[in-house]
């Protein structure tokens, strides 16, 4: 009996470590048994939103942590174009969850793919930068994405849904001058041509230098067809107050809606009637219509989900600790947005995307969760903002008082934000760095910025608690420098812009590409140095040319090992 008890204890410990060690794999299927398309075990991207009066420099900021693990990570720039009357815009289905063979996604998706459907083109399409989605156009209209899911019966994966999410974002980029216009264009196109196919319940933060909107869209079920004469999508948008900070962690965030208040709400005219028709809302309930409760309900809180749905509470609490938000509060009852205790800088937002829940009740390295080197990526109980399967993160910063070409900055970091470096791409640049356009998951490519990040990340995992200090030092050197260089770059670009916008664009392009090249090269070098320094889990000092004899193991872990050894001996 005694022996069995010990075996059970050891087995439990081993099981806990194994269970904790596995990273959560993105999964399409529902595992919760409910009728929703998105459960806490397959949540992916995080959107952070900062209103212009909540930021230190008056800019609006939003993020898309593109958390996936099998998705395409390449970026591109699409120039503006004029179109003759009668031109058409081909519509493509672009699956966001597919690894395309290197360099094949965007030529297909933008110009060369075969498609049986097109819509009338507009006279002029605007230039924009894109990753998986359109991120920022020449008018400083910006988008960030998070999948929120919907009730299963609304999913429309059939070809009757002509427009999927990626396509919707590209159309928004091509056609809009303001965030509000972008929201209305995307909503109306989706209603007209049907939304879904590769996607279902989705969220975009849509911003410009003045406004940040939460835009949520749902398909209307597989039985929709254009001939029904009904809208092929249902959508809703609510404006984030200027002095507020908000988050979308794969959960619908829009509650009660007042479409009469055009300053704060936009949406499908049929959003309530359709919900009633689909038995998602009962007016006789006496409860006011709530968009999120009807179309994408979530019951959990940070606490009840064991940390799987902790990002909303965590981020709101980080920026507004004075509110003392309760992690037990169901997420749907957490505030739509909060006023941050302090104004938020772009560096703050970068750091928020790196959050691993350290020091919180969901700390991934407390006890022995982090293993011998306090690695935050072992423990999958907490869904952290920064996860190891991030393809990249886009941080779009829209700044008023500057020409759009200079005001807009798309900051990009590849891979796990914690071990990588943000790089700026101004709205006015006419090309993205070559290293941003290449690479895929299945072949190491030394010309790829993403692989440079992964190279560092891989070597950081070995002796995490030590190596991360080297990474943070490099981030301070390169990323902080990039942030601090912005005013100087602005100044030089403005001077050129006054003479020639084209010269300013040329300067910005040259500057951004050179900066990216420098950082990517530095990251390859950093990866090399980490490999040497922590080789064989040692501590090699290349300057002194000695191997230091220091214990790298976490003391709690060492105690735990001794404890288990004692149990085994008994």
């Amino acid at each position, binding site marked *: 009996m005694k022996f069995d008890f010990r075996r059970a204890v050891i087995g439990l410990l081993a099981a806990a470590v194994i269970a904790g060690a596995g990273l959560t794999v993105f999964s*399409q*299927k529902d595992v919760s048994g409910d009728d929703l398309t998105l459960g806490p075990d397959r949540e992916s991207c995080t959107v952070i939103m900062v209103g212009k009066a909540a930021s230190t420099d008056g800019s609006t900021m939003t993020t898309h942590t593109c958390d996936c693990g099998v998705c395409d990570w390449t970026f591109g720039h699409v120039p503006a174009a004029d179109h003759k009357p009668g031109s058409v815009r081909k519509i493509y289905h672009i699956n966001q969850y597919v690894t395309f063979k290197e360099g094949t996604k965007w030529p297909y998706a933008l110009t060369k793919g075969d498609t*049986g459907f097109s819509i009338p083109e507009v006279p002029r399409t605007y230039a924009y930068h894109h990753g998986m989605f359109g991120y920022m156009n020449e008018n400083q209209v910006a988008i960030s994405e998070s999948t929120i899911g919907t009730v299963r*019966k609304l999913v429309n994966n*059939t070809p009757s849904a002509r427009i999927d999410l990626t396509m919707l974002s590209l159309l928004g980029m091509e056609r809009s001058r303001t965030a509000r216009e972008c929201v209305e264009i995307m909503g109306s196109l989706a209603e007209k041509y049907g939304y879904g196919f590769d996607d279902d319940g989705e969220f975009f933060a849509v911003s410009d230098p003045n406004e940040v909107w939460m835009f949520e869209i749902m398909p209307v*079920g597989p*039985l*929709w067809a254009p001939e029904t004469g009904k809208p092929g999508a249902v959508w809703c948008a609510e404006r984030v107050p200027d002095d507020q900070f908000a988050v979308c962690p794969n959960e619908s965030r829009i509650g009660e809606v007042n479409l009469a208040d055009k300053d704060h709400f936009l949406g499908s005219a049929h959003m309530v009637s359709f919900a009633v028709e689909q038995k998602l809302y009962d007016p006789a309930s006496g409860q006011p219509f709530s968009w999120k409760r009807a179309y994408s309900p979530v019951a959990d809180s940070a606490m009840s989900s064991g940390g799987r749905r902790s990002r909303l509470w965590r981020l709101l609490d980080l920026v507004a600790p004075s509110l003392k938000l309760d992690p037990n509060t169901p997420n749907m009852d957490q505030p739509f947005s909060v006023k941050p205790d302090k104004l938020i800088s772009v560096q703050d937002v970068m750091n928020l995307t790196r959050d691993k829940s350290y020091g919180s009740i969901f700390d991934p390295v407390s006890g022995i969760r982090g293993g011998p080197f306090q690695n935050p990526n072992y423990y999958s109980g907490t869904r952290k903002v920064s996860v190891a399967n991030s393809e990249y993160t886009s941080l779009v910063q829209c700044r008023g008082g500057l020409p759009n070409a200079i005001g807009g900055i798309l900051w990009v970091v590849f891979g796990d934000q914690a071990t990588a470096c943000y790089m700026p791409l101004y709205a006015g640049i006419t090309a993205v760095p070559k290293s941003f356009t290449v690479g895929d998951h299945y072949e190491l490519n030394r010309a790829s910025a993403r692989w440079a990040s992964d190279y560092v990340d891989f070597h950081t995992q070995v002796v995490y608690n030590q190596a991360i200090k080297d990474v943070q030092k490099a981030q301070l050197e390169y990323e902080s420098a990039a942030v601090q260089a912005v005013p100087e770059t602005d100044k030089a670009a403005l001077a050129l812009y006054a003479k020639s916008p084209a010269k300013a664009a040329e300067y910005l392009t040259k500057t951004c590409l050179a900066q990216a090249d420098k950082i990517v090269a530095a990251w390859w070098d950093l990866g090399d140095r980490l490999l040497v320094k922590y080789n064989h889990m040692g501590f090699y000092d290349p300057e002194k040319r000695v191997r230091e004899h220091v214990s790298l193991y976490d003391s709690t872990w060492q105690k735990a090992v001794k404890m288990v050894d004692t149990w085994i001996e008994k």
Partner: protein
Amino acid sequence: MKKTLILVLALAGLAVAASAQGGTFKASLPVFTTSAGQSNDVNTVNIVMEEAEIKYDYCDVPTVEMIQAGVGLAGKKSGEGFHVESTTDPTKFPTGTAFKTVVFAIGASLKGMGASGLTVDAEEARVKSLIAYCKKNKILVVAIHVGGEATRGAAGSDNERMIDAVAPDADVLIVTKDSNKDGRFTKIADKTKAPLIQIDYALGLVDIMKTAFGV
């Protein structure tokens, strides 16, 4: 005598009870729905059945034993990457009643297969074993492809392998027109003589199913 002969021939020849007549066919209850390839298209099929008010049993990754168990699917419950639903009216078809019709929604999804712990090879083998069981037990096999051209692929691709696993043995093929742009399903139907019903959108399935099951 002539009429009797025709009737006998019909019963013998159409043991699986399928017949195509102007875009319709006949099928019998109870019916079981499932996926060949784990795409979300089976969700579409289930919604069609609900819209047509046809009660059904469903599992995304059933075993032969589950189909063999008939209505109620041996009481199996949903779990991670495994979904079971039984809406069949037990007063009309008590638990254990053998299925007369099995509907396969064809469409390969690596994510879907991954979520169910399946490789393409495993899914193909699983689907083939179900088809073999249905053929052996004279269960009507209805194959549906509503994913359109975008969910087709080159020969040997995941999607095409799922089509190969089901369509050549299907008693009825129902596909959206853009799923059949290359005539792949037409060629299969020509070879197997199975009725091929082509629709514009999934919406068109509702009336077809109503007619097929006589509801």
